[in-house]
């Protein structure tokens, strides 16, 4: 019997039980689309983080509070990010003053606050920083101006709005000169940032409000900075600047109270975390694919039992073990391959839909993997029922009621 005939028989078998075939496929469809969707979200977040961190500029490093450790080889991250926070404005000054290779040090103190204008109100990210921010972050002002050193020193309640905040509260009209309130303190809008686009980790750079760092310290009632950006004089000086920053801070802080991170390190840490998360999500989704496979096996076993007599008749007229088993293997594989294909399409559609509120990126490897995993699951879980069917004793099969 040729393979074409086997396909004809198998498809006939599936068509005879359309509802059942469809439900069995559903298991695989859900599994495959879950794998594709979750892995695409994971990959999207990872790509976003890379873009974000690369966007810092190649000669910028970060100083974070607390100790972040990278265990070499283990691919794990640990530490006490943010648990002990002793970074202060003094340290920023020290870095600027003492670092020969440090061109600029930029304090960042950010937290959420409720913003109000007329009857509009919502929570925004308030970023307390220094006048050098637009230059260091390569993030210029579109309208008005950024605050000055004098305004920082004088604790002036002025603010610069991100694009999204400006649009949400002021629509098309110019916010410069308007008075808004942040956590019930009045601020004067002096500028609006250019549009930067969405970022990773839930940080939308356009959804922020910039205020003098001193004002932020008052507003949030803390001296402690969230992080310090350190800009080296040139790209070649980045390593030297890092060493200097470590030395300068070590004189003032315990070595467990801060971490100087190169971009690659930060990227490495975050990507490892996100990668692990992606694998975990993919793993969970794979379990549902496995369950789909067991569904196939289950239905194939039922089908073998139901068709015992048919198998007996086929054997009586000369079907060999191969003829019977190939028919069931093809049935199972067809279920899983069609299920896999539909699952890929649904997963891809889902990931396109998800793109409107989450970063997502369909990766070729997840599609290929999910497809072959599905097909493999079908073959694997089809083999046992097929073996069972093909080794039925013809007489017993014919007697079966």
């Amino acid at each position, binding site marked *: *019997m*040729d393979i074409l*005939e086997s396909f004809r*028989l198998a498809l006939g078998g599936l068509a*005879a039980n359309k509802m059942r075939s469809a439900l069995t496929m559903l298991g695989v469809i859900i599994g495959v689309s879950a794998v594709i969707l979750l892995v695409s979200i994971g990959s999207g977040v990872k790509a976003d983080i890379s873009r974000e961190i690369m966007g810092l500029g190649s000669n910028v490093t970060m100083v974070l509070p607390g100790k972040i450790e990278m265990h070499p080889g283990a691919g794990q991250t640990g530490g006490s990010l943010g648990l002990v926070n002793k970074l202060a404005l003094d340290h920023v000054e020290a870095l600027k003053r003492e670092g020969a290779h440090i061109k600029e040090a930029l304090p960042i103190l950010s937290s959420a606050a409720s913003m109000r204008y007329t009857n509009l109100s919502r929570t925004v990210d308030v970023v307390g920083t220094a006048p050098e921010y637009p230059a260091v972050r390569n993030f210029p002002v579109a309208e008005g101006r950024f605050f000055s050193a004098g305004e920082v020193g004088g604790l002036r309640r002025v603010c610069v709005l991100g694009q999204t905040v400006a649009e949400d509260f002021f629509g098309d009209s110019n916010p410069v000169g308007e008075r808004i309130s942040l956590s019930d303190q009045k601020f004067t809008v002096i500028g609006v940032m250019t549009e930067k686009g969405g970022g990773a980790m839930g940080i939308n750079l356009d959804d922020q409000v910039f205020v003098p760092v001193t004002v932020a310290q008052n507003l949030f009632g803390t001296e402690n900075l969230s992080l310090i950006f350190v800009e080296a004089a040139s790209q070649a000086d980045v390593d030297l600047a890092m060493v200097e920053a470590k030395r300068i801070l070590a004189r003032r802080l315990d070595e467990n109270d801060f971490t100087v991170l190169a971009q690659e390190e930060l990227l490495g840490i975050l990507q490892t975390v996100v990668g692990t998360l992606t694998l975990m999500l993919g793993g969970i989704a794979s379990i549902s694919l496995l369950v789909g496979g067991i569904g196939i096996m289950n239905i194939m076993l039922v089908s073998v039992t139901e068709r015992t*007599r*048919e198998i*007996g*008749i*086929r*054997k*009586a*007229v*000369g*079907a*060999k*073990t*191969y*003829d019977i088993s190939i028919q069931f293997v093809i049935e199972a594989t067809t279920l899983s391959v069609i299920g896999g294909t539909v699952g890929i399409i649904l997963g891809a559609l889902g990931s396109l839909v998800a793109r409107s509120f989450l970063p997502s990126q369909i990766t070729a490897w997840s599609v290929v993997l999910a497809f072959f995993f599905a097909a493999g699951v079908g073959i694997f879980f089809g083999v046992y029922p097929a073996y069972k069917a093909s080794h039925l*004793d*013809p*007489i017993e099969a*014919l007697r079966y009621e």
Partner: protein
Amino acid sequence: MSPTEELVKARDLVKIYRLEGVEVHALRGVAFDIRCGEFVSIMGPSGSGKSTLMHIIGCLDRPTSGSVLIDGQETKELTDNELAAIRNKKIGFVFQTFNLLPRMSALKNVELPLIYAGFGLGERARRAKETLEAVGLGERINHRPSQLSGGQQQRVAIARALVNDPSLILADEPTGNLDSKSGAEVMSILEGLHDQGRTIILVTHELYVAEHAQRIIRILDGEIVSDEWVENCRSLGRR
């Protein structure tokens, strides 16, 4: 093949079924030869071992001991797949309960042995149609078994047994589930096949059916009790 050559040689066939420690001796040393072109009836009461014997001759089952030679070939040493090939090419089986595939048309049912013989789509349909016409069902090829009478279903089964042009037709109580008119039709088809030179072994427990054959083998409790020629019966104009 000369008509006197032995198509089936059964030697000391013993079949013992073991059910929960109890042994059932279905066959206790059955031996006979059947030559090409013979029409043989096997008679005996229910439970005497007729079906067991037919299944063993038909290569659907293996004896506990003893041997069957089909067309000179010893079947004892053959693998399951080699037995399947013999069933496919040399033997046509007709069952009491028809054993047709309910979801398939008469034509598709008759095509079944040809699928496993490796014939292509067109050749299969052509031969199956021809064979159905030969058993008088040319008008019913697209009917499903449920749309056919018992006699018609058995004729489809006979067509299926014939379609691969086997040398041996085994019919296990083919009229057992039929009314007398349909039974007579089926018997006349079998006689026609015999007239064309085919070898037929027919199981029945009714004498008037058995007497269509040239030779009657009677078995009781798994043993042959008589093996006689009934040439005179047929010449009395029963046909």
